[in-house]
């Protein structure tokens, strides 16, 4: 897990108030929604807001790619990195 992935895993824990969950419990390829960590659509909105605040990036809610970016920590980290480099 690289530093950005760790940071995002921690952001998920803090933002969504996941008590008893540690960064190690959210490996980069674990599906975040449904089976896997078990997040739902309200969590997705909350997480999008937190990412926008933390990394000063924009996430278009109607973007077809958004769903793909949010599947795992690895995908989120890659997305944040790409936005930062843009």
């Amino acid at each position: 897990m690289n530093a950005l992935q760790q940071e995002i895993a921690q952001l998920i824990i803090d933002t969504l108030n996941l008590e008893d969950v540690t960064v190690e419990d959210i490996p980069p390829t674990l599906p975040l929604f449904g089976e896997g960590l078990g997040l739902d659509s309200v969590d997705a909105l909350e997480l999008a807001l937190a990412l926008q605040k933390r990394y000063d990036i924009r996430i278009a809610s109607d973007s077809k790619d958004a769903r793909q970016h949010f599947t795992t920590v690895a995908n989120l980290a890659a997305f944040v990195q790409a936005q930062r480099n843009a």
Partner: protein
Amino acid sequence: MEFRIEQWRAWAPGLDSDEAWQAWAREPVSVEDGDAQPSCDFLPAMQRRRLSRLARMTMHVAWPLCGDDEQLPLVFASRHGETPRTFALLSDVADEQPLSPTQFGLSVHNAIAGQWSILRGQRGESTSIAGEADTFEHAMVEAATLLADGARSVLVVMAEERPPAAYDEWIDDVPFSYALALRVGGIDTGNDAQAGVRWQLRLESGRGDSATATWPHALDWIRAQHTQGDTLVHTWKTRRWIWQRIP
């Protein structure tokens, strides 16, 4: 109206056992509020993530009063509701910050009743009320109507959370956060074997000039329960509520 308190449970910071409440009832003091809250560790972390402090207090007191396979109507009562959440959302609005979808979604008075329904698989009636300083008595009226309508038992939760300091000028009846859950049943005349403490509650008209009770009515009721007090008079404006234990 007459009813039985089949079971009850209360929580406040530092007051989480019969012994602690007993001591408080003998010598009531305003306990330090801090940010203590029940752990609710009977729930998996993923189910706890959207429970606010007031919701945790509610779950903590109500949880053991409802059987695993039981459906019970719920009356959730709180005069002020989740003031910390309201204050946080209003602060975000004032700062022109985007609102948290979770906070916004839960910012209604019946959110906690909804969470109870989801977590306990309750499909029956639930009512959420906010009244004045006699919200507790109004909750009992609500419970009595549900009993009269055929419910075998009704779960009543009265919960208040100490509001943020910004509300100090307006809210002066929450000395500390507390939650009280009552499992209320009707009285079958002729059946003396029914468990629980029997109470009669009646409403009289007052002149509107009497002082209110020293403690919030629900806390005063807990005090009476522990000190074997058999009469309570709770006056608010022109409403004079009289609680009388039925021997």
